[in-house]
Structures are given as C-alpha cells and as structure tokens.
C-alpha cells in the first residue's frame, strides 16, 4: 500500500519535474504568451473597443462624445441601407446554407464513392476556392456584362440586354451564385477529408445488415461526420456574414448589393468617417456572429468531453 503511494508520488514528482524545468517553463511561457498576446491585441481588444465606440460619436480626429444608444436608434430608423443589408445577409446565409453546402456534400459523397478520375473532379471543383474574390468579381463581369457578356450573347438579346449586375433585383442573386461557386468547392473538400476518415468497417457492417447506399449514408456515415458538419455549418454562417470582397469588387456594394460588412467599411473608412456609427453596425454583425460562435463552442466542448 505504502509502496504504491510512494510510486504514485514519485510518478507525480517526475511528472512535475517534466513540466517544470526552468527551460521548459520559459519555452512554454514565451511561445504561449506571444500568440495569446497577439490575439488579445489584434482580435479581442479591438472587439471590445468597437463595442465601446458604438456608443459614441466620433469622426476619427476630434473628440469622442458619448451618445448612448443614439447610433443604434439612427441605424434602425434613419439609415435606409440598413434593413436591405440585413435582408441581403440573411438571404446570402439561406442561399449558401440550403443550396451551396448540400451541393458540396453531394459532390463529396459522389467523389468519395471511388469513381474514376476522382482526382480530376476534386481539383476542378476546388479550383474556384483558390481564386481571389477580386478575380471572381471580374469574371462575373465578363460573363454577365451587358454589352459583350457571354450570357447575353447566348440569349441573343442585343437590343435589350439584361443588366445582370446592374439591376438591383437581379444582381444579389448573381453574386450569391458566384459566392456559391467558391463555397461549394470548399465544403466539398472538407467533407471529402471527413469521409476519408470514416471507419470503412462501419459501412461494411451496414452493408451486411442490408442497408442500401442511401440508408448507409444518412443513418451511419452522416452521424459520424458530426465534427465536420459542425465546422461546415460554422464556416457557412461566418462566410455569409463576412461576405464582402465579391460585392466590393463588382460595384463597391451599392445599388442592390448592400451588405452589413460593406456598410461598416463605408462608414469607417469612407469620406464621412462616422466611426461610432460604423461600429454600431459592426456590433450588430458581432452579436449575430457570436450567437453562432457560442453554439459552435458548446458543440466543441461536448465533443471534447466525449474524447
């Protein structure tokens, strides 16, 4: 009994010495300290500062005045682009979540079944992801432009071309299509990586039990993909809330392409420089994001407990 206690004590001692030699401690403190500090200075500090600024009025140069909730009141009542932007962001989310993401999953499943040329399909479908959104925005102009654009040439409506990118009812849909072009490939590659790590004996067991391909997928494979599902879900939400580059490349996010991220950028670095007001929009975006982030973290914590 005593020897066991002694042994565990010694083991604990060795453990401690393993953790706490002075050099190890220095390495740990420095190499954990730098990233933590960086994250505080670059991410969390500015986030808190943004929340603070949203209750003030400031043009970036003069004094900062505390105005309370006035920015938020103005935002809701007297700022015409706000509600369209909210609507567009939600539409964006629905489009990516209900169309692009399931489509990416479908492609991953088909490719994972081991068809021939799978490497080719995989690279082709992923290709748009590596493109800069500035380039994607330009390609949209090439395809959808009014005078020489491909779509209008095919439709052969030279006299009365459809202004795909200029018509404020149409252009948001075109932008979402272009964004989905990239999003689908991204989702596909994540699911492909996830599917590769699914234990093949699970599928064999399901097949022996007589499950068909669809049953095997929805009842056996899909539930084991839960970690990937969570990541893909979060990425989808975050990408649609963050959407910025592509509309900015097309027309700086005006005329039917208003998004919250564009409004923030306009107010903060635009000529008006209404920093307090821009921050208030940022806080709205932040609140929505945080809702999803917390959900994700709870899922992750649960997953970590299972491990």
């Amino acid at each position, binding site marked *: 009994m005593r020897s066991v206690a002694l042994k565990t004590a010694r083991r604990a001692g060795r453990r401690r010495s393993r953790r706490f030699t002075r050099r190890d401690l220095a390495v740990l403190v420095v190499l954990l300290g730098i990233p933590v500090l960086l994250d505080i200075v*670059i991410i969390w500090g500015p986030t808190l500062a943004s929340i603070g600024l949203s209750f003030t009025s400031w043009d970036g140069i003069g004094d900062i005045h505390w105005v309370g909730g006035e920015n938020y009141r103005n935002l809701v009542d007297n700022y015409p682009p706000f509600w369209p932007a909210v609507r567009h962001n939600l539409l964006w989310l629905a489009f990516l979540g209900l169309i692009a993401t399931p489509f990416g999953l479908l492609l991953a499943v088909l490719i994972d079944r081991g068809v021939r040329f799978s490497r080719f399909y*995989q690279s082709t479908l992923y290709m748009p992801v590596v493109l800069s959104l500035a*380039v994607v925005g330009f*390609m949209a102009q090439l395809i959808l432009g009014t005078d020489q654009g491909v779509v209008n040439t095919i439709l052969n409506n030279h006299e009365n071309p459809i202004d795909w990118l200029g018509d404020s009812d149409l252009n948001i849909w075109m932008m979402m299509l272009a964004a989905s*072009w990239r999003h689908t490939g991204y989702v596909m590659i994540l699911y492909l990586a996830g599917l590769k790590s699914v234990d093949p004996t699970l599928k064999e067991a399901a097949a022996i039990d007589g499950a*068909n391909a669809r049953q095997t997928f929805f009842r056996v494979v899909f539930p084991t993909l839960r970690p990937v599902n969570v990541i893909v879900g979060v990425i989808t939400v975050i990408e649609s809330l963050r959407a910025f580059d592509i509309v900015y490349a097309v027309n700086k996010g005006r005329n039917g392409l208003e998004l919250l991220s564009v409004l923030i950028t306009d107010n903060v670095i635009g000529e008006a420089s209404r920093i307090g007001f821009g921050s208030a929009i940022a806080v709205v975006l*932040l609140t929505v994001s945080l809702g999803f982030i917390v959900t994700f973290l709870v899922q992750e914590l649960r997953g970590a407990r299972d491990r």
Partner: protein
Amino acid sequence: MTADIRTTSPAARGRSLAGGDRRGEHPRRRGRFGVHIFLMAVSLAFLAPLLLAVYASLRPYEETAQHGYFSLPEHLSFDYYREALSDSGMGEYFKNTLVIAVPAVLITLFLASFVAFAVSRIKVRGGIVLLMFFTAGNLLPPQVLVTPLYVLFLKIPLPWWMSDSLTMYDSYWAVIIVNIGFQLGFCVFVLANFMRTLPQEILEAAIVDGAGLWTQFWRITLPLCRPALAALGTLEFTWIYNDFLWALIFISNPDKLPITSSLNNLRGQFFTDYNLLAAGSVLVALPTVLVFLLLQRHFIAGLTLGSSKG
C-alpha cells in the same frame, strides 16, 4: 424503412451466396455512368468561367467587341499577357504580396503549432479554454476589428528603417501582424485536432529519453505534423494572397498594395479593355492555382479536421 431492409437483405445474401454478382453489378454500373455524367457536367460548369477568362485574354479587343466573348476565334496571341505584366507593374505587386504572405504564413504556422502542441499534446491546464479563445477569435467578422486597429496602428510609431511612413499604419508590419492574429485561430483548431490523432507513446518515449519541451515540440511532434502543415500552408497562403480587406484599410501608399489590387491599374479612366483585364486576372490567379495543384496530394490527407477517429 425497416420492412425495406428486411426484404432486401435476404435477397442480397442469396445473391452473394450464389456467387452471381453480375446481376447486382449491372444497375450499379449504370448508376456509375450517371454519376460520371453529372460530375463531368458540374466540373465543366465550374471550369467554364476560368476557361472563358483564358480564352478572352488570348483574343484582341476588336474581335470580342464585335462578336462578343462567345464566338469563334480569328486571332490568338499572348500579347495581352505581355501588356498586363508591363503595364500593371504586376511583378512589383507580386513581390509586395510575397513580403506579406510568406512571413505571415510561416509565423502563423509556427505559433499555432506550438499552441496546438501545448493544448493537445502536453495538455496544459486550461487548454480547452485556450482553444476556445483562439477559435472564437478567428470567427469574428473582420470589419468589427477594423476601426480600433486602424486607430491603434496610426498611433504606433516605427523607426524609419522599419516603415517609411514612420507609423505602423501604411506598413507591411500592420498587414502581416493582423493576418497572423486573424489566422491563428483556424490553424490552432486544425492542428490541435490533428495532433490529437498522433500516438502519445512517441512523446512518452522522448520524455523517458530526457527530451525537453522544445525538443518534444520541434524534433518529435512537428515532423509528424507535416501533412497537416502542408495542407494548412496551402490554405493559408491562398487566403493571405487573396486578402483584399486588410491591405485596403491599412495601406495607403499605392506602391505597397498587394497583387489583388493591381488589377485596378489595368482599368483605364474612360475605357477598360476587358481582355487585358482577363489576362491580368489569369496572371493573378496563376500562383494560387499552381500552389494548389502542386500540393493537392498532401492537401486532403492533412485536412483531418476533427476526424471521428480521434
């Protein structure tokens, strides 16, 4: 559903017992054929915009202006590429991008792998909190951070040999450091998941041999993470290469802008030659496409984002 399973299962068993797999193979092969047609169609649709851009860039403006982009070619040449390279000063901008992207990717991967190592290999206390702290930070919308960072960088003076603007604002340092801070979260998350799948015995053996923390990290763990680091390196390089927002906000000197902004130099004030712009776009896209094609073999293998086997 259960009835379905019951009726199919004896049939399947009977088939395999009889050894007559041919009957089962036939519809399956037809299914494969459909899958091929579907995948081929989707692939073509995905490639079409790229091919169109390449095609447009090879044709003179007069021709496409007259017949539209969707027409048969009369003249094909690489003239626009030469023009795009010389007119836009693309080489210079490409250098700017590398000055930002290469250090940012390397430092991000280094710092992130140590945090991941601390969290999932030596299991420091509060590791899970640390993981959350970083991951959540990566998910915040960048616009939330813009204003305070802008003000902060304007206030930080730098000596002239570090930045000719004498402030953090309008220097590469600002863009690099923001990219690092912002990408850390994602890398920590992926690497922590990856390291969790490595056998713990290797580390224990190293500890028995008296390896210090640094050796355990640098000599033992990192080499095993090569696939994940390759995948992340590719991903991060493309992201930082393609970044648009940070440079737009933190850099004012047009000579310091990264390559994604150089396309605007190809737009004339009154007239834009879209074919020239197409050539420019292809040139801008080329490095990321090449990096992906070269490293794609390692790519999927390294992306075990929280695999179920862990």
